[in-house]
């Protein structure tokens, strides 16, 4: 029973997160501004991270955690660089 509950909820959560990712990627394509695209990427990262965690719950393994952890801690680095590039035209001054 609990296996079914968990399996079902994980599956639904994954589909929902998938849809969220798809929506984020729409902004990545249409913008209209670079800022929107970058936030889209950031959102994509976060949603993907969540997806990975749900995947971990679904499989009952902790080995996929590291990927999520790396996104959580370092995923922002690329968006920060992009953001700084927008603001200053240069990433490292």
């Amino acid at each position, binding site marked *: *029973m*609990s*296996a079914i*509950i*968990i*399996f*079902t*909820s*994980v599956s*639904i*959560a*994954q589909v*929902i*997160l998938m*849809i*969220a*990712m798809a*929506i*984020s990627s*729409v*902004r990545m394509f249409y913008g209209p*501004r670079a*800022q*929107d695209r*970058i*936030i*889209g990427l*950031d*959102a994509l990262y*976060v*949603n993907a*991270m*969540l997806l990975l*965690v*749900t995947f*971990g*719950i679904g*499989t*009952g*393994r*902790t080995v996929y*955690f590291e990927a*999520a*952890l790396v996104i*959580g*801690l370092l*995923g*922002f680095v690329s*968006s*920060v660089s992009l*953001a*700084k590039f*927008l*603001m200053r035209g240069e990433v490292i001054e």
Partner: protein
Amino acid sequence: MIYSAADVPVWAAAAIAFFLLFGALLALIGAIGFLRLPTFYERIHAPTLSTSWGTGGIMTASILFFSIAGGRLVAHEILIGIFITVTTPVTFMLLARAALHRDRVENHPDVPTRAELVVSTIQDRASDEKGA
């Protein structure tokens, strides 16, 4: 080590399912908001749904699942929560500031210029002092 969902009691499974769906739905709402809100400054509020309790919900679900299925506290998901909370604002702040800069360069009417802000700050300070 592989944790089996069958080892989890039903109440816990229900709780896990709740947190999972709660988190996922927040993430989805955030995404929808991000898509639908009309201006950039409004749009940046939406994704924080998934970085705050969206993440929170799913991390809680994960902590519950692994701790209960494994029989001992597994809480490293907290770290993800903390990291996401600390790092996402950095991007958003920088992007918002960049947007502000560009809007000011383009003389966007809705965006306050620094001159206006200086005036309002002085007024505020004055009123604060009055209040004090």
